[in-house]
């Protein structure tokens, strides 16, 4: 048995392993093409494209954590309301606390609001994770209860009113854009890092005496992704530049992908979802791992909530309504198995982008909200149906 096989084998393996990701990417391109055609190109102009990516951020933070939760065989129904609760708490501090305590320091105030928001998310995650993993109450029930509790908490904090969170320093988080030059610098840094990691990877493989993937394959990969990054920066710079929340999301996705693929924590999550008994008998601390995943999920709800407050500019009683279902749907569209053990963060992001693309496009076409729901529902079921059919006939 060799470590790797020839180029064709390598390509085939890569194709088979990521088939679903590629298929869903194709679906995304098809959806974009359809809307671009029906809106006479307006759908894909710089402004709408930039908005599209910005719109997906709030639920995408949730989806990036939800992947790991579902991969371990769990579910988290509270994420939408937790993000909503974080958003009203952040708004409350912005509107009513900092203005009295530190009236002249808007930046410090914004930073403190962010920290409080993240803290609330993490604490909630700790409590929830503890009950689920150590006290062994099923995740479905704990997070369902949690959802109601948080809904009540939102009403308590807002007193049924809308709290403004539109202070300029705070608004930057979800409404800010990088200057054009900064976008280019960031793009350049990303490309350099990409090249560096590819070269480093090849060197290390050589050190261990593995057969290397053909150079042209890695070259094509690097060129493709570099072009994607440069193309993105160029295109959004035609409008306002790189949006801050999109940048935050990109960083989060990179970290989450890395965690799920390259750390023990991530590997264990997949093993637990794939076969809990085998994982247990392999000396993996299942409770600890599940606990940590819920804490991480809480943190990401914190991020999502802060971005939400800044994005809307208000803390409202309806904050986060239904986001948990969007997050779950994104994961499933992106190939996460509800039975556990399978799923990628990147896939979930593409799933999330598809959901947002549909909403955005249908809105542009002035389709009534009722029909928007119908279309989204149909697409979700069709996607899974196609997957089931495809897996059976592979």
């Amino acid at each position: 048995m060799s470590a790797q096989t020839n180029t064709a084998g390598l390509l085939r393996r890569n194709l088979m392993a990521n088939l679903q990701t590629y298929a869903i990417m194709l679906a995304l391109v098809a959806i974009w093409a359809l809307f671009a055609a029906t809106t006479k190109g307006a759908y894909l102009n710089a402004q709408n494209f930039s908005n599209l990516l910005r719109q997906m951020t709030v639920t995408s933070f949730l989806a990036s954590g939800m992947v790991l939760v579902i991969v371990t065989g769990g579910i988290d129904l509270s994420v939408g309301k937790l993000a909503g609760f974080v958003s009203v708490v952040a708004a409350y501090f912005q509107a009513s606390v900092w203005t009295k305590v530190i009236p002249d320091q808007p930046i410090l105030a914004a930073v403190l609001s962010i920290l409080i928001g993240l803290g609330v998310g993490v604490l909630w995650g700790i409590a929830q994770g503890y009950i689920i993993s150590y006290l062994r109450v099923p995740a479905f029930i704990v997070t369902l209860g949690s959802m109601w509790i948080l809904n009540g908490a939102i009403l308590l904090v807002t007193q049924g009113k809308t709290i403004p969170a539109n202070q300029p320093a705070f608004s930057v988080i979800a409404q800010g854009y990088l200057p054009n030059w900064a976008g280019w610098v960031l793009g350049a840094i990303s490309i350099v890092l990409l090249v560096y990691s590819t070269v480093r990877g090849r060197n290390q493989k050589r050190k261990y005496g593995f057969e290397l993937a053909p150079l042209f394959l890695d070259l094509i990969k690097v060129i493709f992704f570099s072009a994607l990054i440069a193309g993105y920066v160029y295109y959004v710079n035609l409008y306002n530049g790189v949006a801050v929340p999109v940048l935050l999301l990109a960083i989060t996705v990179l970290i989450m992908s890395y965690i799920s693929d390259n750390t023990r924590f991530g590997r264990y999550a997949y093993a637990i979802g794939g076969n809990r008994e085998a994982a247990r008998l392999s000396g993996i601390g299942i409770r600890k791992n599940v606990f940590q995943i819920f804490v991480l999920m809480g943190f990401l709800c914190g991020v999502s909530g802060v971005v939400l407050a800044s994005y809307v500019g208000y803390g409202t009683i309806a904050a986060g309504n239904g986001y948990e279902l969007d997050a779950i749907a994104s994961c499933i569209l992106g190939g996460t198995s509800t039975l556990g053990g399978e799923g990628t963060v990147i896939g979930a992001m593409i799933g999330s982008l598809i959901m947002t693309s549909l909403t955005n496009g249908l809105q542009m076409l002035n389709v009534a909200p009722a029909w928007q729901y119908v279309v989204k529902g149909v697409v979700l079921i069709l996607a899974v149906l196609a997957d089931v059919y495809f897996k059976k006939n592979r």
Partner: protein
Amino acid sequence: MDEDIILDIKNVTKRFPGVTALDNASLSIRRGEIHGLCGENGAGKSTLMKILSGVYPYGDYEGSILYEGKELKLENRSIRQAIEEGIAIVYQELTLVPSMTVGENVYLGKEPVESGSINWDKLYSDTQQILTKYGLDIRPQEVVKHLGVGRMQMTEIAKALSENAKVLILDEPTSALAEAEIVKLMEILEHLKSLGVTCIYITHKLEEFFRITDTVTVLRDGKIVTTQPTKDLSVESLVGYMVGREMKERFPRGNRQPGEVIFEVEDMHAVDPEESARKVLKGVNFNLRKGEILGIAGLMGSGRTELVQTIFGEYGKITSGKIILEGREVTIHSGYDAMKTGISLVPEDRKRHGLVLMQSILKNISLPNLDKFASFMQIDKDSELKESLVFAKSMAIKAPNMFIPCNSLSGGNQQKVVIAKWLMSNPKILIMDDPTRGIDVGAKYEIYKLMNELAERGIAIIMISSELEEVLGMSDRIMVMCEGASTETLEINEATEEKIMALATGVTLTENIQTKKNEVLQ
């Protein structure tokens, strides 16, 4: 031929892309006989069974099958149709709903319905009739999960027979049964035979062919090698037909000299962690020497698996007793602790407990060993691959590369992956719970050789086995368990099947064994 042929399989060929699973197979099965099917994994036995049960429908294969003199035409995946025709299968893995009663399971999907509601009285009385007719000793109202494996197997058979089956196919029915339960199963099969039911019997345990079958057909690489009356065959000739070459010995004896005592368990008592009133271990004593293979024998339910999982820190709550490793008492709270101390466990059921089937060979081998390659922040994937490859190669796992998911490997290769994964953790003590269950003769032999090599390298091995022959063939000493307690540890030269059975059933007089065996089943 003037014999009464119930199933006449003529020149059947079944091709899959790239492989011919069944190659021009012809076979006649006489009414009322017990016909053994023998062959290594991948020889074509399952393919033949799937054709007979309608999983591969008529037209999906070449050749023809005459059943009761007429062409058997089964629709796609219509197992129900096969059952209606009178062909029933009992699969190796049990297919019962644990939370339902015996009766509900037997009539699952065909409940007697009167004006829209199930007639429970009829269901239970019909079930009772079937059970009585076939001499199965179970209560129809019993909930399946409370039955032992042996009785679950009986329920499975009752379920298959409930449609007045003419042909009953049994796919490795004894793989989960202990000796006493096997005896009972054999009695049931004899009884069925006397009622005129034809049985096709598949097993990996060669002795069983000689215990029960009238005729044996051997398959190899999709071809039928021979069909002979069982009385003309011997274990040696059977193995010869199966592997296509002479195999001198089934249990290779290594040349090893066990060293000093490395591991001791003293008077261990433990309770079920979920239910602390239930005692699972009631006084276990044994020791283990460096470089020795210690066999643990005992009936199903004697606490063998519970013992090793408790030692491994993943099952029972120890209430008293000591575990001593290299002269020092150790406490083990989890599998992780056990690994750190140098104890590894190859669990009983590789599919359920040993492997993450959907994941690659690589990920399975490295799973318990990620600490070796990982810092807090990352896993060094290249060194992970390099190290795992070393163990995969030393295990001679047959696969094109390390990225193949384990569910596409054969049973023997899967077991090698499980062993590789645990060898990588560099254990001083390797516990193997039924390591050759359900794998074919060739792969078994490889695993035996491997165990010998490991013992020669100084690893102390504890082997649990349901097959007495295996325990006798491989061990240096044999510890026998009975009802949660250790009885005696026998030196291999003084151990016999009779002595082991006597200790395992808790009787001292050999003539009582048979009665005790039956009592165990009651």
